[in-house]
């Protein structure tokens, strides 16, 4: 019998990671420090606001964007989180989601635009997206640690990778779906590529792009428990601790906090996307 030896993919990947972390970790570590302190100051800033003031502001925003019913839900939901003494973890999670989403959108939207405009980029990016979305998110956690250290930044790194694909996909889709006659019309008036993008394609793609942002936020939220495993803190760590100490009640409280936050963020970003349509 001829036995084909196992292909040493694991060794190869580890060698690459070791090489990169040995040579470049000082850069990523520096980035991590900056992001971490930024994140902390966001949380500190939010903590400085009295929860009641925060709730009032959140309810007002909800009332402006959606209807009064959404405002009421927002106020009651946040008040309940406050009452469960999950205020600080909730803010930490909110900050983490906000930062991860911002990074994902900042990278994802331009990539989406380029993939829509250049077939070559589209063909390169989309298989990578499939890979990013189907590879279990845990896999990104461990290699993130040598680069960003244990804690929030590694969590943000893996969250960004996991949550970015919809931002890219839906931006690309939105731009490709702009009706051909509109593109033709803007061409017929002698618009250059940039004018066409800014005046025609992006405005018309906005609702679709907002759906992408909404999906990115939702995926970020779904990562918070996983991120807690490498010390990200927040509502996720309540759940994780609850699981480790076999305290189902504690885990449930943390989980409920995530649900309330998810509902508020989801409805508000959806409304924002729909509003641009009219």
């Amino acid at each position, binding site marked *: 019998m001829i036995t084909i030896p196992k292909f040493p993919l694991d060794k190869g990947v580890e060698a690459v990671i070791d090489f990169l972390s040995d040579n470049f970790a000082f850069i990523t570590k520096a980035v991590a420090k900056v992001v971490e302190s930024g994140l902390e100051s966001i949380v500190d800033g939010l903590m400085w606001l009295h929860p009641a003031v925060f709730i009032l502001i959140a309810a007002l925003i909800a009332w402006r964007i959606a209807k009064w019913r959404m405002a009421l839900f927002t106020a009651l939901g946040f008040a309940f989180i406050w009452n469960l003494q999950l205020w600080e973890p909730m803010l930490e999670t909110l900050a983490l989601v906000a930062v991860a989403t911002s990074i994902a959108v900042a990278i994802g939207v331009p990539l989406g635009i380029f993939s829509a405009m250049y077939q070559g980029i589209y063909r390169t990016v989309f298989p990578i997206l499939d890979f990013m979305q189907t590879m279990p998110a845990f896999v990104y956690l461990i290699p993130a640690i040598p680069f960003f250290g244990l804690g929030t930044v590694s969590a943000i790194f893996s969250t960004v990778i996991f949550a970015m694909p919809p931002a890219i996909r839906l931006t690309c889709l939105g731009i490709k779906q702009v009706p051909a006659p509109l593109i033709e019309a803007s061409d017929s*008036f002698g618009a250059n590529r940039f004018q066409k993008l800014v*005046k025609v394609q992006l405005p018309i793609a906005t609702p679709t792009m907002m759906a992408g942002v909404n999906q990115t936020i939702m995926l970020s939220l779904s990562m918070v428990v996983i991120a807690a495993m490498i010390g990200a803190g927040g509502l996720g760590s309540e759940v994780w601790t609850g699981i480790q100490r076999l305290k189902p009640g504690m885990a449930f409280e943390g989980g409920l906090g995530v649900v309330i936050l998810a509902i508020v963020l989801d409805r508000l970003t959806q409304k924002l996307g729909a509003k641009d349509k009219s």
Partner: protein
Amino acid sequence: MNPIIEVKNLYKAFGNRAKEGVRLHQQGKSKDEIMREAGIPVGVADVSFEVQQGEILVIMGLSGSGKSTLVRCINRLIEPTAGEVRIDGTDILALGRHDLLQLRQKKFGMVFQNFALLPHRTVLHNVEFGLEIQKTDPVKMEQKAMEAINLVGLEGWEQSYPDQLSGGMQQRVGLARALAVDPDILLMDEAFSALDPLIRRDMQDELINLQERVQKTILFITHDLDEALKIGDRIILLKDGALVQEGTAEDILTNPATRYVQKFVEDVDLTKVLTARSVMKKPRAVAQYQDGPRVALRKMDEESISSLFALDKAHKLKGVVMAADAVDAAKRGEKILDHIINTDIIKVKLDTPVAEFFSDLATLQYPVAVVDDNDKLVGVIIRGSLLAGLAERGTVDNDNNS
């Protein structure tokens, strides 16, 4: 005068082997043969024509005849495969990207079948689009856009969004957007085809009125012969991407070049195309201002007619005298016709379409009078001669049909 648009031996074939398709066509193969044998679709095949400044040229053909492709070759929204397109003498196929964009900004305004308005912009901002692309100063931009909006009769709707407007009004926005940049050439691709028939007719009239004021060169694409005949100074007929006939409305109607053209022409309502000029007869007798009832009666008797048009001192048309009234007046011993002239008559101009007075003719006791711009009588239209005129032009020679 040099033509503003010159198209010479223009070809558009699609795919990687487009050039080969052109070569095959030049060797005498038909579009169908090239598609069948080489698998190369040819959209426009060896088309040449010229358009003069201020002219409305209609490009007509059924769907798939290549007319939309042809018009897009003229501003290079579609890149021609071979041939020449000159705008004001400039070979536009030689232009680089930057010059091409400049040319589109300065020379062309395009109106689309499905309006192609930007749904997120108000009417005003839609009309400003072309000016924005040219980076016009904002104050001047709004002023120009408002002028264009007034020109198409949409004042008061500036702040509305396209989806709040009817189809006809949306296309007015499309027209205003094209006019706002003050282009030399308007390209109108089936601009009215998506509108319902009544609105469509209004828009056609409006375009003709507008053209009198703005004097653009217009390339108008349609699949509707009635529309082509109404709007076009000249008409080009396309079939399978090739030009089959070029000429005025009358040329095409009275002298269809091929069976294809004839097919088109057969469906035309002739009363819409033919004008008073082409069906009128010379008036055989008229009553002068000094004629009395007896003279009028004698003139009618000589020509065996029962009514007579009466002229005033300046030889302008005054009205009509009926034989029965003249008999009564003569019995009463009247010396002049003044009391019995019926001045409430139907007068039409030389270029009035027959359709406009066709139904009146059925009930009138006397002919329709055709007058020139000075109200002088130049002809009369009698029911019988009109029907004969229609029949004559409606029949195309059946000898070729076998």
